[in-house]
């Protein structure tokens, strides 16, 4: 690792919190005597922060109470010992689809593609790579939006849609397994009409699929349970109706 001899190189990893503890300490010692490095840290941190600040989640009201209760009892200016939580783990190099789906949900898709690329490079077939590529086209669209809903009967479905590209993808997790000869069918919904947009396997679990056909004027994506092979029109009440932003 000759390159690591230049301490400046570590600035990116430092900002991403990706240095192991020993190297982090070393870098911080260097920072103390390197003004340009501190400026670079400030600048790169402002970019890193935005990676994490693009989306929000509503805390429970209980959390607010817990925090405000706790600060009354906390003495200021004392650093907590944190040795235990600095322990490193080994990261398995076979991220499950589940993880990829989670990241897709988290990042609206870009990271999903990335981590999938990481393992597809290793172990996926060319055909699967092509499927990932189609997903990636939707997921990385500049105007991609993500909308999530819980399904009636369990599971969560997220629709990533790009009006500019006229495509959308459905990413489902925790789908209940279907019994009998039944499948999940996807639909584009527009003014009360339904266009068939592909099938998901009855196996349930985690699935991701680019919808067949164009998004066009559709205002929502629906999921119904249909006989094997799918139906031309929905024959059951949708288990999910996910609005797609205009």
């Amino acid at each position, binding site marked *: 690792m000759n390159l690591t001899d230049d301490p400046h190189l570590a600035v990116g990893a430092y900002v991403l919190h990706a240095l192991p503890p020993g190297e982090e300490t070393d870098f911080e010692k260097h920072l103390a005597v390197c003004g340009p490095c501190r400026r670079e840290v400030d600048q790169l941190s402002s970019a*890193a922060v935005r990676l994490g600040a693009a989306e929000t989640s509503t805390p429970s009201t209980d959390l607010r109470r817990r925090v405000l209760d706790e*600060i009354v009892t906390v003495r200021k200016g004392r650093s907590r010992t944190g040795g235990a939580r600095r322990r490193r783990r080994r990261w398995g190099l076979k991220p499950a689809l589940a993880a990829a789906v989670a990241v897709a949900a988290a990042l609206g898709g870009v990271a999903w593609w990335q981590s999938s690329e990481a393992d597809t490079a290793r172990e996926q077939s060319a055909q699967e790579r092509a499927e990932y590529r189609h997903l990636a086209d939707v997921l990385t669209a500049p105007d991609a939006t993500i909308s999530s809903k819980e399904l009636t009967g369990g599971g969560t479905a997220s629709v990533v849609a790009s009006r500019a590209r006229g495509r959308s993808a459905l990413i489902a997790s925790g789908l209940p397994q279907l019994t009998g000869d039944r499948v999940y069918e996807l639909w584009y919904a527009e003014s009360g009409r339904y266009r068939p947009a592909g099938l998901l396997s009855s196996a349930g679990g985690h699935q991701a699929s680019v919808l067949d056909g164009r998004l066009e004027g559709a205002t929502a994506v629906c999921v119904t349970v249909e006989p094997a092979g799918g139906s031309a029109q929905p024959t059951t009440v949708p288990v999910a109706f996910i609005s797609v932003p205009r």
Partner: protein
Amino acid sequence: MDRGAGDRREGDTQGRRGGSGDDPGLDELLVRAADGDEEAFAELYDALAHTVLGLACRVVGDKAQAEEVTQDVMVEVWRTADRFQPARGAARNWVLTLAHRRAVDRVRSVTAGRVRELRAAVMEQERSFDTVAEEVEVREEQRTVFRCLAQLARELRLPLVLAYYQGLTYAEVAEALSTPAGTIKSRMRQGLRRLHDCMEAAS
């Protein structure tokens, strides 16, 4: 070690962020919180908790754990508010940098069982729909981030994403990508630099 990190990281961020970082109101609240003003702290909490939680959810992938992280972070903000240096950056960035750090600590401390993957997959995206204005703003910010990430070359993007969102160390990223560790370090720096420039141009 951890203490050293905390001491250093308080000023990590810079306030020159169009639309996302600059908020003199928050800086003021944090300064008042440092003086022990609990009301100011409560206001700061209300302004930032949903973003801290959103960030924590992404990294730890589980709402309940993310709330724990958020609680730890906000309490740590209270305890260490006097280390905040307004001259070096905005309060919002300071808090979010701390939040990312704690979220990464959390995923790294999970045992080898690695249940996170599964839990993460069923994490429901929850967004604040408090106001239409806020929603629009969030989407704008998202779009900028996505667009800038998407514009990065793959070899620059992957290390950023794996480190930031999955909590991998650079060495783990290097292993995952079968790329020399020094190269990964260098790409992390270069990728962040490009991301920064792209976001600057967009704001």
